[in-house]
């Protein structure tokens, strides 16, 4: 596909289809807010359970702030760390992120300077830590950290390896959700791939940069998403998203209410349809 003019080879039908996909994707995104976080949370939950650890957490690198940000944590002593941001060139977590090398350290408290201030800011100073890198095909994206096994003083080589297996699962999950979670980003990546300039580009094609063209296409495809008359729809989608967390008996109630509403809407539509027929 060669960029020759605006919206090249993109028929109205194709654009409408893209809009519909964008709408559904946005709906799905709003229905499962924080899908990526929930995968990460399940990884740290499983890590704490398997290691019988006091805490486990995942920090991901945020390029915009140049910090490793602790996104999720599990365990009795884990929660204090969520939201904390550390420079990626400092401390054990920084080292593991930068070097891509897994490490375990015991006797952390023996060294008052070793990350002590950071540990105290989380209200928990561990005895031992294992930290392993989270990596995808482009390199290291974060760190999985496990603190203090309840029944042992230190982490073994096998613990490092086991933690590394968990970290790999987390990294795979993150790579998958990173693509899916933002409709605009997804479309941009798709269009950028399609609009790679080819050798046969003529002068006309070069007058509009591929990047600008991609922006325009994404804007056209996602124009529906910001429309005023959809705001009721999004409000509804978000309420449905909240209902997902309801207990089974509450869900049954919601289903009953929806059945009544749907019946009412059907009746209403039939009545309108009848009025239209009679007015002819």
């Amino acid at each position: 596909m060669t960029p020759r003019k605006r919206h090249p080879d993109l028929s109205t039908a194709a654009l409408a289809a893209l809009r519909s996909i964008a709408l559904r994707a946005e709906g799905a995104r709003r229905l499962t807010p924080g899908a990526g976080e929930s995968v990460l949370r399940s990884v740290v939950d499983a890590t704490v359970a398997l290691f019988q650890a006091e805490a486990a957490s995942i920090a991901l690198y945020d390029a915009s702030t140049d910090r490793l940000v602790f996104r999720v944590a599990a365990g009795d002593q884990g929660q204090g760390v969520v939201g904390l941001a550390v420079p990626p060139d400092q401390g054990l977590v920084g080292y593991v992120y930068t070097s891509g090398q897994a490490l375990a350290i015991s006797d952390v408290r023996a060294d008052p300077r070793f990350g002590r201030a950071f540990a105290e800011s989380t209200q928990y100073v561990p005895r031992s830590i294992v930290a392993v890198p989270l990596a995808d095909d482009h390199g290291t994206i974060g760190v999985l950290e496990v603190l203090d096994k309840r029944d042992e003083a230190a982490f073994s080589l096998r613990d490092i390896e086991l933690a590394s297996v968990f970290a790999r699962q987390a990294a795979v999950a993150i790579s998958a959700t990173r693509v899916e979670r933002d409709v605009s980003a997804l479309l941009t990546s798709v269009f950028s791939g399609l609009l790679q300039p080819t050798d046969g580009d003529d002068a006309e094609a070069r007058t509009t940069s591929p990047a600008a063209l991609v922006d325009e296409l994404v804007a056209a495809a996602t124009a529906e998403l910001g429309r005023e008359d959809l705001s009721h729809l999004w409000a509804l989608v978000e309420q449905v998203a909240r209902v997902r967390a309801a207990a089974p008996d509450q869900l049954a109630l919601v289903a009953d209410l929806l059945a009544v509403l749907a019946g009412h809407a059907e009746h209403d539509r039939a009545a309108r349809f009848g009025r239209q027929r009679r007015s002819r």
Partner: protein
Amino acid sequence: MSDQDLDLPAWSEPFATRNREGLIHIAPLGRVSREVAWGSGDGSGITVAIIDSGVERNHPAVGGRLVRSMRVEVDEEGEPNVVEDVDPIDVVGHGTACAGIIHSLAPAAEFVSIRVLGPDNRGKGAVFAAGLDWAIEQGASVVNLSLSSKSDALFGIFHELADAAYFANVLLVSAANNVPGKSYPSLFASVVSVAAHDVPDPLTYFYNPSPPVEFGAFGLDVDVAWKDGKRIVATGNSFAAPHIAGFAARIRARHPRITPFEVKALLAATADNARDA
């Protein structure tokens, strides 16, 4: 944890106590004693480059053997440059730990530290590559790499650097990652790739005849030097690599004309699991 039955993919698995019975190296040209391999060689005349978080010059474990400290600086175009580290520091403690291990085995070897950890993390893989490139150009005898890159984009660069080192008679000793997967340059053929074993003895090492990870060295609960003059107990393949780097420094001191593949062959023939044919 009762995970002993788990089929865990890990580079240190062949070196674990429960698997070592089957880890035998029939040395094709016969075993070699360590007396022959390095004897009185204490690392004199050998420069070991430590590409890591820096090395603390005054740490007692380093024995005053740090002769030069560099760091990699990223310029405005994003290009990494290797410059003198006017304030030589170890930002973590890890590089000092590696130097301390090597010094305990090869006390006369000198260190050059190339710090690839710093306040700027743009293109950390490229920074690491620039540090390695510099160490090769300077003709270090042994380079300790307790770090690696998983970036596909850097595969080619590290491959070139591993070849350049080999042809320039520079021995790269690299810590394997824990879980099999991409990891450069630790998985290239010319590199001495090391994982940890679980024998509490710094002088014990094994050769694994099934590559890519060929050597297992002490790496469990190692008492290591750390930041600010301290010591700490640490575990990881990171601490196994400097043990092999230390033995390599002794071999190269004893046999100054020996090449990287000959060092590797000697390490295999002197390993604790080497047997005569």
